[in-house]
């Protein structure tokens, strides 16, 4: 049974691609067969974050338009055997993706025995974003603890509840999770940033994980290594926890409380 997971947010720059890459790697590292698809046609970036940009020959749109086979377009990850990347096209044609085409690719992945398909949504609520979510079984809504991101996430929750195949079929709908990124526990403690409980209460859905703001995220993207593979970084560990929860394991939330400062640091400031 293939599970289709959309990673979405509404607002741009909150960490969708970073999260898609790390979740895909995390699931694949657990032995699952995973494909991660970039739906951001015209603004391809997942390939860079995954570190396979020089190996892109065919892309998602080529497959949909029948210019190559799915096998030719899937880029096998060099680190993990069971992980494949499908790059977005750099075409400027906004209508390059079609619902039928996306459905065909997803069902072919299911036939090939993939356990998970991660759909990395573009920002906004245009065609790419709505197609990325349409076939999803689960949605991971990436949100920063910041007013515009939270508001946009709520718009996305509205679309997930109405404009998806599962919503149209009735029944239980798309399972929804929040993934808080760029979380800064010190600023939360100072009252300068909304906390995980504020965001959870406002949006009313469960939190899959809290990823702390971390220098590791930038260094990971600089070198094309998803941050989950940087086991020394707090963000990498937080993504590993989120993947474990996605697989049904219980993990306590880490990195949500501010580090206690020593007496000297408190007197002299940091």
């Amino acid at each position: 049974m293939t599970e289709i997971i959309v990673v979405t947010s509404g607002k741009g720059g909150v960490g969708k691609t970073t999260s898609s890459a790390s979740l895909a790697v995390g699931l694949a590292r657990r032995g699952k067969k995973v494909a991660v698809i970039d739906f951001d046609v015209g603004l391809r970036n997942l390939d860079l974050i995954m570190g396979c940009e020089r190996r892109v020959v065919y892309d998602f749109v080529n497959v949909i338009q029948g210019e190559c086979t799915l096998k030719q377009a899937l880029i096998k990850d060099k680190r993990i055997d069971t992980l494949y990347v499908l790059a977005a096209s750099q075409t400027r044609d906004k209508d390059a993706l079609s619902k039928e085409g996306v459905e065909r690719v997803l069902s072919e992945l299911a036939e090939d025995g993939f356990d998970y398909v991660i759909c990395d949504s573009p920002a906004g609520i245009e065609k790419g974003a709505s197609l990325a979510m349409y076939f999803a079984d689960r949605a991971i809504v990436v949100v920063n603890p910041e007013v515009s991101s939270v508001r946009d996430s709520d718009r996305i929750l509205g679309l997930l509840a109405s404009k998806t195949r599962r919503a149209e079929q009735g029944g239980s709908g798309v399972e929804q999770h929040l993934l808080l990124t760029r979380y800064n526990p010190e600023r939360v403690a100072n009252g300068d940033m909304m906390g995980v409980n504020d965001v959870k209460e406002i949006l009313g859905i469960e939190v899959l994980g809290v990823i702390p703001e971390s220098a590791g995220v930038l260094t990971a993207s600089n070198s094309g290594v998803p941050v989950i593979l940087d086991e020394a970084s707090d963000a990498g560990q937080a993504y590993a926890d989120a993947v474990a929860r996605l697989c049904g394991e219980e993990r306590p939330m880490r990195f949500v409380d501010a580090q206690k400062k020593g007496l000297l640091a408190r007197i002299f400031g940091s």
Partner: protein
Amino acid sequence: MGLFDLFRSRPKNTASVAAERLRIIVMQERSADGRGSPDYLPMMRREILEVIRKYVNVDPEAIDIHVTREGEGEVLELSVALPEKTSPPVAG
């Protein structure tokens, strides 16, 4: 925070301001697109305002709606800032 920060006036807790503003806007937008709870809220707000204006000439801006969560339930709090000198009710 260092020693000298103690003597500065603490700014308002902006995180709670953000959370409060979002609670209201999210509730309004959810009711506008027919999701979740009370879609009667905007209409109720208008009607309450009309009733108040029968007796006191308040500015529509003087009405403030807060939704807070207490335990399992939500509390709707509506506060109206009355004008300093009570104006006579609007005729008609």
